[in-house]
């Protein structure tokens, strides 16, 4: 999937990032174009619709704040999915993990209400991370022990999490009233506002710090090295003695914990309580966020803002242009498809073989070149990992 750059004009990593940026921009543009076509087909005024979309996302300080608020759960959940991606795992279960985290946070915040503000918030978030981590650990362990594909198990666990949290709220934590929700958390458990008058809270700061932390973890630590190695080259990981099964479990647990924090910040910074069925599918949008970010932690930041903008703008579009905001979900799907298809946007300069660096051409044989290409294109090869991890 990677086009290696042979030139020395730019550091390879930079050139790669720039190329990917261009590709992503093209994918988003193409998806919005398709959305415009749909709008036109349905008889809407495309200009009016997209004007409102833009206005709601970036038109004023308030809409920017709104975009950022919408981006927050996507930032955490997207970071979670991206981390798992780096470990070669598809965590489609961020949705379930954030439900687990949200309920744990709400319950903890209520239980420890007499604690002072900062430790209370910390404890509530820790509880959210733990609950999310446990919910992520389950599919990780299933994968490591039985080889059950995490895509299926995480999706099933999403449904289970939504039903289970609803049940728990109904049965044990329900506030009086018709809605299945917990009581409001104490005022001092709420995340303080970052800019007065907006709904923008310290969650933003926590999110950025977390991005930096995950980036550091992946780049600079032995654990992160293991994760990336298992994700990119499970065969080599086995030969190097990396305990692949254990890493699978831990990768999913860490990913789940980060997704759990998405739920925590929703409860502590936006909802101030747990509400059954509160998520409009953050966990699924998170997959799009992680893909657009190419699974790079720092990429998650702009990607989350992009999708936050689509949501904020989509709502404005719904309010003022009377166009259902769900169109933006379809656009998300298209973005995923376009970003994921290297052949589509690279069609005009696709080569059958990844180009090696200058200087190796002399010794490199056709066979090894083709093999190199195969290995780069293969991506997560969990089948091999499982086989080689042995019993």
């Amino acid at each position: 999937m990677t086009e290696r750059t042979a030139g020395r004009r730019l550091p390879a990593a930079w050139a790669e990032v720039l190329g990917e940026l261009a590709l992503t921009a093209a994918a988003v543009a193409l998806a919005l174009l398709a959305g415009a076509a749909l709008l036109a087909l349905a008889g809407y005024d495309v200009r009016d619709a997209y004007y409102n979309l833009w206005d709601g996302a970036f038109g004023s300080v308030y809409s920017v704040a709104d975009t950022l608020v919408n981006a927050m759960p996507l930032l955490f959940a997207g970071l979670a999915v991206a981390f798992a991606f780096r470990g070669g795992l598809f965590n489609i279960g961020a949705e379930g993990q954030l439900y687990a985290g949200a309920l744990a946070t709400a319950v903890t915040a209520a239980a420890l209400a007499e604690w002072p503000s900062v430790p209370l918030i910390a404890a509530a978030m820790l509880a959210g991370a733990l609950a999310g981590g446990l919910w992520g650990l389950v599919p990780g362990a299933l994968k490591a022990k039985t080889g059950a594909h995490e895509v299926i198990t995480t999706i099933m666990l999403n449904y289970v999490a939504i039903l289970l949290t609803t049940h728990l709220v109904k049965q044990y934590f329900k506030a009086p009233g018709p809605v299945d929700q917990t009581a409001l958390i104490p005022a001092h458990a709420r995340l303080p506002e970052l800019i007065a008058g907006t709904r923008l809270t310290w969650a933003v700061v926590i999110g950025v710090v977390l991005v930096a932390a995950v980036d550091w973890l992946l780049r600079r630590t032995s654990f992160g090295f293991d994760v990336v190695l298992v994700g990119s080259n499970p065969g080599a990981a086995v030969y190097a003695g990396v305990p692949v099964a254990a890493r699978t479990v831990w990768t999913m647990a860490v990913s789940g914990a980060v997704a759990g924090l998405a739920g925590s910040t929703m409860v502590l910074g936006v909802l101030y309580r747990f509400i059954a069925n509160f998520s409009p599918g953050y966990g699924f949008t998170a997959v799009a966020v992680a893909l657009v970010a190419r699974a790079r932690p720092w990429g998650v930041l702009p990607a989350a803002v992009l999708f936050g903008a689509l949501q904020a703008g989509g709502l404005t579009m719904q309010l003022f242009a009377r166009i259902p905001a769900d169109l933006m979900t379809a656009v998300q799907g298209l973005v995923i498809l376009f970003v994921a298809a290297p052949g589509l946007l690279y069609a005009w300069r696709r080569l059958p073989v990844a180009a090696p660096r200058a200087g190796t051409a002399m010794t490199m044989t056709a066979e090894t070149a083709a093999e190199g290409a195969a290995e780069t294109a293969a991506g997560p090869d969990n089948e091999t990992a499982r086989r080689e991890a042995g019993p």
Partner: protein
Amino acid sequence: MTVSHNDAGRPLPPPAGAAPGPAPTPGGGGADAPPAPAIEMIGIYKRFGPVQASAGAHLRVYPGEIHCLLGENGAGKSTLMKILYGLYAMDAGEIRIRGRTAVIRSPGDAMRAGIGMVHQHFMLVDDFTVAENVIAGMEPRRRGLIDMAAARRLVAEYSRRFGLHVDPGARVEDLSVGQQQRVEILKALIRGAEFLILDEPTAVLTPQEADELFRVMRQLKAEGKTIIFITHKLKETMAVADRVTVLRAGRDAGSMPASQTTPQRLAELMVGRRVLLQVPAPPAQRGPALLQLENVTVKGAGKDLLRSVNLQVRGGEILGIAGVEGNGQLELEEVVAGWRTPDQGRVRIAGRDVAGMGPRRRRRPGCAHIPPGRPRRGPAPALSVEQNVVLGRHWGQPYARLGVLRRPAVRELADAVTSRFDVRGGRGPVGGLSGGNQQKLVVGRELYHNPWVILACQPTRGVDVGAIERIHRELLDMRARGAAVLLISADLDELLALSDRLAVIYEGEIVAEGETGQFTEEMLGLLMAGQRPSGGSGRNAAGRNGTGRDGAGRDGAGPTEATAGD
């Protein structure tokens, strides 16, 4: 002749009669062979990205001959043949079949032109039966369904006619490599192949199986088939070829009747310089046993994958494990590396029982593990050279502290390894290095820390000649330093060149063990096929629990723990 670019800088002046000039003498493929070539490839060019795999190669094959296409790994033999078989599209050049220009865009076109190919990696579905594999794409039908009975009859008929014995109802997965190869040949013949391309067919065979293959090739020739035989082995070329074309760096370096050349001359044409055929090694200075396997048994589904294996490797010696692939080598590797716990028995490293020690902990005190050169398992292509060099040691001092990597230490290590082991190709993602450099990097990573127990599995497979020499030299260096080396290889030449002692593994059992000098290639072949070198009948005549060693005789260094009685 419409050739326009054959004069562009040939590396060696081709010998007389070998130039693609007009009317060369046809090979020894029968005196009555007409002088017109059956297949002609003229000035073939093919590029993969920056790699010029074919650079104006010429080939002329005459009807009814066995034509050897000789060349090193990467000389472009397979590429040329895949072009002929329609798997690759050439960038420039011309193909003529029976004098007519042929357009071959797909294997289907090739088959219609009468060309069949047996690939190096078999094109067989493990899960299918022989008959299913053979007839797929040309199924006999009855009322819209596959007529399996007819398919089996067809396969049986062809296998009788060409002496290619194989059970049509057997599942391919259960067949030996040699049998699978027969299935591949059958596949081509049933599709009406007149020209048969065999791509490195002997690489996976025992010497006896190779002899059997040569017999089949001669029989096919007698039936009027034309065979193109790709190899890099001189001995085989001399044994079976009527005519030889040598390829070097994507071009033909010479073409001549086999009867008019010598192995030395062919070797020079292949490499473009004089070659040193073996690395000289001083006699072994043996130390204490550093790696011991005691009664190691690994159970699989229904059968033992390893059965009571006793082995020991002493410091300063290389013990080679010979065997046809799939006879327990993988399990042996896994047990020694620490990925798999044996169901019975013990592994000792420096006398210490290492049960319960994973691969990570075994590595720490001085064990190294060199994985196969192909499939390339050692390096992580997406990661940088630095990351690859520290791989496996990235958990602790001096390359990490408290779980955090120490960049300067890693960089220093990368500098040291790349310079000492001559790894070229820059510091970027390892996938961009040539196969040989990737493998040298892995060998360097493993040997840099001066291990004293080394497990090397197919260390030079699929690697170019320069890298092979280098890797062999490094292993011998380690031996000279007193390390114990367990070398698992399917390449008999490699085993004979490096090993002090050899053990033969067959169906999970060590059926013979002894000093290398006590084995001939023929004996090894028989043992690898599960037979007694004396020509005895029963393949299990060697019996169990080490009695098989008697046949080959051995020095006094047998396991002293044999009396432990477990």
